[in-house]
């Protein structure tokens, strides 16, 4: 018995899912872009504004203590949810993008030398490419692409072969947002570790879909973003080994990240606060805490099981569509499907599907190198979440047939 068995009740908790688009019921298949928010999250956010609004970590008055408790409780919840070794290892950031930049600026840049290499796969999101390019350009290091196969899977042997004494970091996406591929991150982390190379895993698309245990993975850095995890945008985390956080110099300066400031010299606070200068997105993180509570109540295993069924149904349905080419056909995959359709441009399909109430994303999905590899400028991407249904898949397929007729 899982709460997901009553999917109508679950869907009723997400106000947006009952919206009409152009007079048609919304079919929201853009979950890899951002997820819809349950009532529990929306209420936690407004409850903070109406009941506890105050700044954190600064004031000793009641509102300040309440806001701080709620904010720091979110850190405890997220730490438990992803299996962090301790709450101090959880640095709150604006999202995956800032998390990667933080590692680039504070961990790697100080020691990066000309000729050093940063190895990231060819299926990374721009957030796991561009920060490395920026510090590489500054220091004379190189960003090296790790190979992928025609099915959109990581070429594990080829990747391990590229690890060498110049490699300063290996970065890999846990689940590809463009291809749906679930990568063998444990294998890559272990291979890197065996060579003394730190690893960073981009879990943006993993944590919403199955149970992740960061301590068991034993990567040096795990990054994630809150808005794909049913929390507000502008929230995210870097989960890093304590030894790194202790050794890393601060990234941005300001209030909270210091112990004492003077013009003669400033001393810094302990992690995670050392990396959280200024006022954070308090409402957002309180929402993230509520999202994690909500997910745990529903159960990540039940979510994964339901999504596996939806994935298989969707996969079969797409297989029936003439002239549709799946981009990314990995065996281990999430319910994220990129495709192109003969004679119809991705953007036209997306706009016309929207006219039928179906929200999908079209474009490069912030993965230019992946698109280049597959020789397409853009794809349509349908990405499902547990709250989607078989009926929606049927509606999507019917809508797709209809809009193709229009464009033909």
């Amino acid at each position, binding site marked *: 018995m899982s709460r997901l068995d009553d999917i109508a009740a679950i869907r009723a908790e997400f106000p947006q899912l009952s919206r009409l688009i152009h007079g048609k019921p919304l079919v929201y298949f853009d979950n890899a872009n951002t997820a819809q928010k349950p009532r529990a999250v929306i209420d936690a956010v407004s409850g903070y504004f109406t009941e506890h609004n105050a700044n954190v970590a600064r004031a000793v008055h009641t509102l300040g203590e309440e806001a701080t408790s709620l904010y720091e409780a979110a850190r405890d919840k997220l730490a438990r949810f992803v299996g962090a070794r301790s709450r101090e290892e959880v640095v709150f950031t604006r999202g995956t993008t800032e998390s990667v930049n933080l590692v680039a600026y504070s961990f790697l840049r100080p020691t990066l030398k000309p000729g050093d290499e940063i190895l990231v796969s060819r299926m990374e999101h721009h957030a796991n490419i561009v920060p490395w390019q920026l510090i590489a350009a500054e220091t004379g290091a190189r960003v090296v692409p790790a190979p992928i196969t025609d099915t959109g899977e990581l070429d594990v042997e080829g990747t391990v072969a590229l690890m060498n004494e110049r490699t300063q970091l290996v970065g890999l996406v846990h689940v590809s947002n463009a291809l749906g591929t679930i990568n063998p991150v444990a294998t890559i982390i272990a291979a890197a570790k065996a060579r003394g190379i730190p690893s960073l895993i981009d879990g943006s698309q993993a944590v919403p879909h199955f149970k992740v245990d960061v301590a068991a993975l034993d990567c040096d850095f795990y990054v994630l973003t809150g808005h794909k995890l049913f929390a507000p945008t502008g929230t995210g985390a870097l989960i890093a080994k304590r030894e790194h956080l202790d050794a890393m110099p601060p990234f941005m300066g300001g209030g909270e990240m210091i112990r004492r400031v003077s013009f003669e010299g400033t001393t810094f606070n302990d992690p995670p606060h050392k990396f959280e200068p200024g006022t954070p997105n308090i409402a957002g993180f309180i929402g993230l805490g509520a999202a994690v509570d909500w997910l745990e109540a529903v159960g990540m295993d039940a979510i994964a099981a339901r999504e596996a069924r939806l994935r298989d149904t969707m996969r079969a349905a797409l297989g029936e569509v003439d002239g549709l080419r799946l981009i990314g056909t990995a065996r281990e995959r999430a319910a994220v499907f990129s495709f192109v359709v003969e004679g119809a*441009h991705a*953007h036209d399909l997306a706009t*016309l599907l929207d006219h039928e109430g179906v929200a999908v994303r079209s474009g490069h999905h912030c993965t230019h190198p992946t698109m280049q590899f597959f020789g397409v*400028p*853009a794809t349509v991407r349908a990405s499902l979440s547990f709250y989607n249904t078989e009926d929606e898949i049927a509606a999507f397929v019917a809508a797709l047939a209809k809009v193709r007729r229009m*464009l033909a």
Partner: protein
Amino acid sequence: MSAHPSTLYSETVLAHNRAPRHCGCLADATHRGVAENALCGDQLALTLRLRGDLIEAAMFDGESCAITTACASMLTAALHGAPRARVGELRMVMTAMFRGDATAPGEFAAFAELRHHPARQRCALLPFDAALSALQPKE
């Protein structure tokens, strides 16, 4: 905020998309420009033959969406025999139309509905930007 679905992909636009005019490259082009749509990665190349300030011929090339293709088809037709300043003038009318301040002439009016699709306005502007890039003095 939400657009009327049927009007963006009007018969005019769909017809141009099915059978675009002036598709290809001018063999005797005097000017060439390219523009790119960051959103989808589409690239559009435009070739022009000018005599003095007069555009004698125009063609476009590239794989693009129906909006871009139809607009490029209309633009290349509209530029035949037009003064070079026409490109900029037309583009201004288009952006004014997207703000709701004007109606573009002739078939271009088919894109009025883009007012409600800000993310896709760039698709219709792409041919104009390729033409402007072609006409820009090169070092």
